[in-house]
């Protein structure tokens, strides 16, 4: 009885500590949000909702509209996802289902290494290798041959997020129970048919979760993007254009901003980025729950 009580006591303490920790985290998120709102208040007051849909970003005339960066962020992130997803899926199927462990393990290891490389190094590499390739492509397509720009940024992002999407997808593919695979083989399915109709559908919610994780990274990725996107604060008209993302414009201008409104406008972009990331994650959670195999 006594022992039981003691057990309950520790249980209780543990529950309380966990609750406090959870509340702290929520508090932290709310705190960040409030700070961003306070710091961006001059800009919010000056431009109101117009901030979101106007395209002029002119520190000299103190006119600030964030639409070019919103577009820049969403465009590069989704383009990166579209480029990375097929590779992530194919790679995950290969590493999770097809390749024998003695091949899959070293490849997976190298992928984890890739995920750990600092983003500035991806940026440097992209300047030396991707920019010339993109320039060549631009000449082929008759676009101005900047080399830099939205498309280059999307490519770097795609490469950077690939290991994330891939490793999550690989892990869930590995978790598909052997018995349902055998059920498929037992019905005369080939390996490919089993992958297509049994393994991928079973793992779909996890595969999607990996893609969302990758999207989260792409939305916020700063350094590498800032280095290759061209840092032009005007509305982009094509994927070959120079541009800026929300993160890159903050990184680029924050240290140089002298005017209060300019600073506040940059913080407001940060606030928008924060909100977008939260919304994307919430939507993703809902979709993951709906996709889950019960």
């Amino acid at each position: 009885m006594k022992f039981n009580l003691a057990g309950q006591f520790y249980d209780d303490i543990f529950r309380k500590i966990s609750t406090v920790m959870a509340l702290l985290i929520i508090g932290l998120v709310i705190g960040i949000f409030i700070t961003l709102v306070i710091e961006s208040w001059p800009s919010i007051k000056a431009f109101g909702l117009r901030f979101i849909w106007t395209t002029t970003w002119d520190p000299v005339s103190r006119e600030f509209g964030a639409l070019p960066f919103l577009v820049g962020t969403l465009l590069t992130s989704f383009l990166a996802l579209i480029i990375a997803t097929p590779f992530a899926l194919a790679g995950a199927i290969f590493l999770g289902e097809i390749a024998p462990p003695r091949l899959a393990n070293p490849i997976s290891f190298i992928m984890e290494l890739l995920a750990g490389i600092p983003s500035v190094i991806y940026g440097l590499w992209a300047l030396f290798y991707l920019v010339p390739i993109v320039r060549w492509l631009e000449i082929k397509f008759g676009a101005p041959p900047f080399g830099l720009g939205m498309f280059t940024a999307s490519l770097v992002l795609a490469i950077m997020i690939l290991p994330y999407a891939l490793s999550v997808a690989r892990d869930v593919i590995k978790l598909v129970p052997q018995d349902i695979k055998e059920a498929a083989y037992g019905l005369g399915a080939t390996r490919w048919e089993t992958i297509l109709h049994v393994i991928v559908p079973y793992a779909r919610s996890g595969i999607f979760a990996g893609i969302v994780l990758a999207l989260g990274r792409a939305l916020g990725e700063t350094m590498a993007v800032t280095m290759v996107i061209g840092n032009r604060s005007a509305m982009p008209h094509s994927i070959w254009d120079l541009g800026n993302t929300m993160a890159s414009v903050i990184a680029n201008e924050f240290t140089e901003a002298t005017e209060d409104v300019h600073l506040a406008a940059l913080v407001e972009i940060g606030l928008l980025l924060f909100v977008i990331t939260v919304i994307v994650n919430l939507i993703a959670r809902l979709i993951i729950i709906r996709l889950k195999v019960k």
Partner: protein
Amino acid sequence: MSLERLPIIFRTEDLCAYYEDFMAIKHINIKIPQKQVTALMGPSGCGKTTFIRCLNRLHELTPGARITGSIYLRDQNILQLDPIVVRRRVGMVFQRPNPFPTMTIYENVLAGYKLLGIRLPRNEADEIAEWALRKAALWEEVKDILHRRGTFLSGGQQQRLCIARALAVKPEVLLMDEPTSALDPKSSLQIENLIVELKETVTIVIVTHNMPQAGRISDFTAFFYLGELVEFGPTAELFTNPKDPRTEEYLTGKFS
């Protein structure tokens, strides 16, 4: 009933199955009669699962596994056929019910077609689904919930769904590896009754640990011991008058 007079569907010649260098099945020669229920019995680890998985070439899915000898399905050596073709003709029901969790009951029954990219006209699909579910004695229970997920069913119903799924592609043989061992007694009995009815449609080869069950449902029994086929004959004969001392010991419960 004597073995000699019946048409034979499966015949193995000097069949050996390996995991890496370990020989799990040793020089098996057996003739399995058509449209009968053949039970495979023997102590745990004697190779029943390995043997049955050779018959539809699932054995070779295990890394390092291989087969020597020959297995004739109606005079064709299945080891020389495409395993895909073999598995269409020889269906399998596993120990644990394994309906596809992403599919509805209806889709599960027709999975054998969908997986292979065979598109059936709607009415033909409906017909096959109903036929298979009736054969598996599940139709009455699920006819109004065909579009719910198969995994919502009870264990016994799931196992009958798996039987329906296997039957839907009209196999010549149905292999069953301890199909009732994960089920409650009532569901087990339902499946036993089902098996007896099914032998008009397909040949059944069933692994079972349950002696009374083998007695109730099987026409022939094969007794395996340490990878060897020790004795094979009509169930009644083998149970009442075993020729090999090892069979007798097993039947009297000396080892299990």
